[in-house]
């Protein structure tokens, strides 16, 4: 089938497709970060978790031939990183932001250390669902060729939102995040809840990493993550600590990343670096508008060190 010339209509279409493709890892890391932050801790180390998830998924998929087994192992690997972060931060007087930076260094180090031998081999990709098969326009088909993990991420956002609102476990997470003293009075162990939240958050980030190496860009190299793990922190602020908003924020950040290639396809090649900075600028502006020296950010967990 030959390409249909869509003119400038190709830009929003390419952006939509790009946004969906690029946003999936954003979605998973931001959901993981959201859960961790709702329990009152911040995990700045998800960048390391992401690349470790990417390499472990790639290695397992290559050795066993099963990409889904790779996703599972990436989740386990991420959970392990979350557990380590959670346990170290449970020691008194230890700064969770600094531990996150250390975990980022170590995660990237371990991933690149063990990933050296996987730069060449080709692992099987995750399958995608051709939702655009009804259309004759190849660009639309390409845009709607969506990976199953995207829907898994959407599902996870809905489930996380529901769990936080309606279940006992969700109440524990929220109460620990809002007041350690109140949690203690309820008989909840704050550190235990925070370790479990960080662990689960790490598992989600690990899955996000597996998407990077197994679907898009779909290979393993040292530049595989362009800071999505670090961005997760900004994204969660942008999403006001709400899992469903994380979905929208991930799409927005993803489309900002996709705008450059989309414009290039119609011949506009300058200035797209500035578009790339747009989400950060937007987050910063939102932070400036909504912050106040006299009260907490609205929606922010009160025990979070960055909101104090």
């Amino acid at each position: 089938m030959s390409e249909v010339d869509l003119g400038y209509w190709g830009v929003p279409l390419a952006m939509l497709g790009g946004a969906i493709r690029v946003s999936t890892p954003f979605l998973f890391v931001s959901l993981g970060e959201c859960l961790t932050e709702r329990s009152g801790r911040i995990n700045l180390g998800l960048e390391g978790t992401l690349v470790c998830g990417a390499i472990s998924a790639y290695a397992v998929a290559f050795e066993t031939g099963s990409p889904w087994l790779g996703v599972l192992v990436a989740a386990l690997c991420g959970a392990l990183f979350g557990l380590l972060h959670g346990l170290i931060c449970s020691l008194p007087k230890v700064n969770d932001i600094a531990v996150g930076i250390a975990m980022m260094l170590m995660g990237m180090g371990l991933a690149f250390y063990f990933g050296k031998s996987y730069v060449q081999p080709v692992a099987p990709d995750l399958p995608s669902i051709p939702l655009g098969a009804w259309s004759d326009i190849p660009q639309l088909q390409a845009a709607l060729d969506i990976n199953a993990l995207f829907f898994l991420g959407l599902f996870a956002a809905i489930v996380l939102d529901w769990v936080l609102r309606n279940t006992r476990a969700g109440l524990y997470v929220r109460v620990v995040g809002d007041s350690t003293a109140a949690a203690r009075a309820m008989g909840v162990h704050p550190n235990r809840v925070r370790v479990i939240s960080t662990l689960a958050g790490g598992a989600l980030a690990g899955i996000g990493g597996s998407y990077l190496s197994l679907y898009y860009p779909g290979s393993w190299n040292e530049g595989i993550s362009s800071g999505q793990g670090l961005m997760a922190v900004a994204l969660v602020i942008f999403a006001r600590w709400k899992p469903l908003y994380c979905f929208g924020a991930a799409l927005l950040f993803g489309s900002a990343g996709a705008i450059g290639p989309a414009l290039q396809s119609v011949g506009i090649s300058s200035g797209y670096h500035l578009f790339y900075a747009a989400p950060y600028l937007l987050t910063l502006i939102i932070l400036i508008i909504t912050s106040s020296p006299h009260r907490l950010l609205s929606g922010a967990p009160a025990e979070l060190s960055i909101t104090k």
Partner: protein
Amino acid sequence: MSIPWHRPSWATPLARHSEALLIPVGALLAGFLLFALFLALQGKSPAEYYSLVYKAGFGSAFSWQNTLVRTAPLLLAALCVALPARLGLVVIGGEGAIVISGLACAQVAVLTQQAGTAPGMVLSLALMFIASALVGAAWIGAIGVLRHWRGVNETIASLLMTYIAIALMNHLVEGPMRDPNSLNKPSTAPLTDWQRVGQIPGLEVHWGLLAALICCIAAWLLIDRTTWGFGARIAGSNVRAAQLQGLPVGRMIIIVTAMAGACAGLAGAFEVAAIHGAANASLVSGIGYSGILVAFLARQNPLAIIPVAIMLAGFEASNGLVQRRMDLPDATVLVLQGIVFLAILSSETLYGRFRVFTPERWQPLPAEGEISTVQQGNPA
């Protein structure tokens, strides 16, 4: 019966200082040991690793030179973290300030390239460094302003501004500021020869090292030895107490973040004027992030930053030799850094836990005549 042993007057300060020295050194050794275990598990010899690091980082004049060249920007990047940290702020955006001020340095260099006379050249060089320091100060100082004025979290703001700085740099270097002759790697126009920073005679390391050392000592004097610094440290440990004392906390925050930014700005200027010779994507080298590691390992003490930065620079300088001799990937040094960082951070929990280090335990005993009344349980 307990023997009242002699407790000299220097025992109390010794106990206090040895805690501040022994715990980090112990944690560092624990980190090295854990990394040795990591190597041993893969059948690599930790002894060979550490001896290679010594050889390539500190073993000869050439290796010292290699180490010290890497030390200079690390010192400045670490100051960018350590200064605000003494005020209780976690600023992690040094990378952005380095990038943006490196760009300013290159731009001023291009604008003043025509200077022909000797005073003109000196002025041009001075302007390059002043502009870089000012841009750096404005970049990180803005984070202090936002913190004071709007209560915006400085960690997140500095992280966001780093991404903005990198995007801005990419845009300018590939667009308006691009030198048409830079084909493969978009760059600004190269500095002319006299705009390049030379080397310290006899050391073969550029002058940035001396500038960075002076900055470290000046920062230490300011924060640890002046009344103003004492006020800043009070604000860092208890904002309410500082405000009740009438200390100008907001002004302190803005001044300290601006100074921190100026340090990062100098790092960017030396990267351009002494190493790269033009501003391009090489400015995004992760030095800003390594500076975070150095500052935390030094526990935010500007003087302790010096040995820590030299040590880390030595590990980085030896990375190439380690790769070739031991067939280890280049990420080995990252793993080591991560493990050591985690060990140091975990050791924060140990302060005040050991009775040996508590100053009260070492206070001189009361005079002879008072002993019988003080030590009641003592059978004479």
